[in-house]
C-alpha cells in the first residue's frame, strides 16, 4: 500500500514536471525590472555571507566537509536532470531543498542552493543571472528557513521522521512558490487589485502545478528519509 503510494507520487511528480519544466519557478533573465533584480540581490547577499561564514567554520574544523558539500550540490543538480524516458520523455526537476536542509542545515543550504541555481542558469539555461538574486531568495533562503522551522517544530512535537519529512518538504515547496509569486506581484502590481490582487493571480496560475508538485516532493522526501534511516 505504502509502496504504491510512493510509486504513484513519483509517477505524478515526473509527469507533472514534464509539462512545467520551463516554468519550474525560476524567474527568467530580464523578466524583473532592474531595480527589483538589484533589490533581491541585496536582500539575498547577507544570507549568503552568513551561510558562507557558517560553512567556513565547519570546513576549518573538518576539511572533508568541502568535498562532501561539492558532491551534495552536484548530486542535487544531476538529480534534477535525471532522464526518465518512459514516464516523461523529458527531464524532471526535484528541488530537494528540504532534504538538504534536514541534512546540512539552512546555512549550508543557502550557499548550496545558490550554487545549484547558478549552474541551472549556466548549464541548463534555466533562470538567469540578474534574477539569480530573486530566485536564490525564494529557493535558497525562504525555502530552507521554512523547512528548518517546520522540521524543528515537528521534531519537538515528536512527529515520526517520515511524516516530519513530508511536511518539511511540502512547506519548503509551498513557501518557495509563495515567495516567487510575491516577488512577481511586487514587481507587477495589478491596476485593479494592487500587489495583493496580482499576488493572487500569480499564485493562482502556478498553483495548478506547484501544489501537486509540493505533495509529490513531500512523499519523495519521506521515502528518501525512510531509506536513509534504514541504511
Amino acid at each position, binding site marked *: 500500500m505504502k509502496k504504491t503510494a510512493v510509486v504513484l507520487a513519483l509517477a505524478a511528480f515526473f509527469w507533472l514536471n514534464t509539462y512545467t519544466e520551463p516554468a519550474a519557478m525560476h524567474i527568467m533573465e530580464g*523578466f524583473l525590472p532592474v531595480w527589483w533584480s538589484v533589490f533581491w540581490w541585496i536582500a539575498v547577499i547577507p544570507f549568503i555571507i552568513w551561510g558562507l561564514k557558517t*560553512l*567556513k567554520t565547519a570546513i576549518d574544523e573538518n576539511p572533508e566537509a568541502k*568535498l562532501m558539500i561539492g558532491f551534495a550540490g552536484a*548530486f542535487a543538480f544531476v538529480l534534477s536532470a535525471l532522464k526518465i524516458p518512459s514516464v516523461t520523455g523529458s527531464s524532471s526537476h526535484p528541488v530537494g531543498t528540504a532534504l538538504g536542509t534536514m541534512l546540512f542545515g539552512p546555512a549550508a543550504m543557502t550557499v548550496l542552493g545558490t550554487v545549484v541555481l547558478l549552474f541551472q542558469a*549556466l*548549464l541548463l*539555461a534555466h533562470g538567469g543571472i540578474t534574477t539569480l538574486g530573486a530566485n536564490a531568495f525564494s529557493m535558497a533562503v525562504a525555502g530552507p528557513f521554512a523547512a528548518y522551522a517546520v522540521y524543528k517544530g515537528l521534531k519537538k512535537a515528536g512527529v515520526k521522521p517520515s511524516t516530519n519529512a513530508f511536511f518539511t518538504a511540502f512547506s519548503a515547496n509551498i513557501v518557495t512558490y509563495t515567495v516567487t509569486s510575491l516577488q512577481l506581484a511586487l514587481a507587477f502590481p495589478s491596476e485593479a*487589485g494592487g500587489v495583493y490582487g496580482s499576488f493572487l493571480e500569480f499564485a493562482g496560475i502556478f498553483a495548478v502545478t506547484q501544489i501537486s508538485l509540493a505533495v509529490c516532493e513531500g512523499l519523495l522526501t519521506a521515502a528518501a528519509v525512510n531509506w536513509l534511516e534504514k541504511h
Partner: protein
Amino acid sequence: MNQIDTVSRQTRFSLVHPMEKAVLLLICLLIIGCWRTPIAGLSVACAALFYVVVAQASIGFYLKLLAAPLLFITMGILPIAFSFDGWLKIAFSEKSLNDAVLTASSAFGGASALYAFILTTPFSQTAWLMKKIRISSLFIDIAVLVYRFIFQLAERKTVIWQAQLLRGGRPGIQMAARTAAHTFTSTMLEMETRQQAAELRGGLDYFAVADWHSFWRNKK
C-alpha cells in the same frame, strides 16, 4: 547540460578573454534594464543572434534553448496583462497590455543575451570572472567542485542506467530510483579515496585560474 558545456568550448569565442564577453553581456543587460521597450529587447536579441552566428555556435541549438523560456514568459505575463475585476470578470487596459509586452520582450532579450554568453563561455572562465569580481573564494571553490562532480555523476548516471537496460531493465520509476541510489552510493564509497587524493595534493584550497587571450590582441 552536457551540450551547453560542449558547445561553449567549441565556439570561436571560447578562448576569448572572459572579461570582454562579460562586458558585452553586461551592456546588453543594461540596455534591457534601462530601456524596457520592445525595441531594446528585440535589438538585443538580434545582436545576440549576430554574436552567436559570428561565434559559429549551432544556431539550431541556440534557438532550441530560447524556446524553453517561452512557456514561462507566457505564463508569467498573463497576470500582468489581465487582472480580475470582481468575480470572474477579467479586466485589462492598454497600460497592462503594454506592460506585458514590455516584460515579455525584455525577458526574451535578456534570455537571448545570457544564452549567447553561456554558449561561448566555458565554466572555468565564469569561475575566473567570479574571482575577478571578488566573490568569496569559498563560494568559487564549492562551485568548482560542484562543476567537476556534475560531470562525473552525469557520466556515472548514464552508465548505470545503461547497465540496467542491457540486463533487461525496463525504463521507469524503479530504474530511475535505482540509478539515483546507485549513483549516490557508488560515489559515496569513493569519497575516502577522493579525500585522500585531495590531501596528497596538499588540500583543497586555492583553485587556480588559467589565463585567456584578448580578442583584440589575437587580431593583431
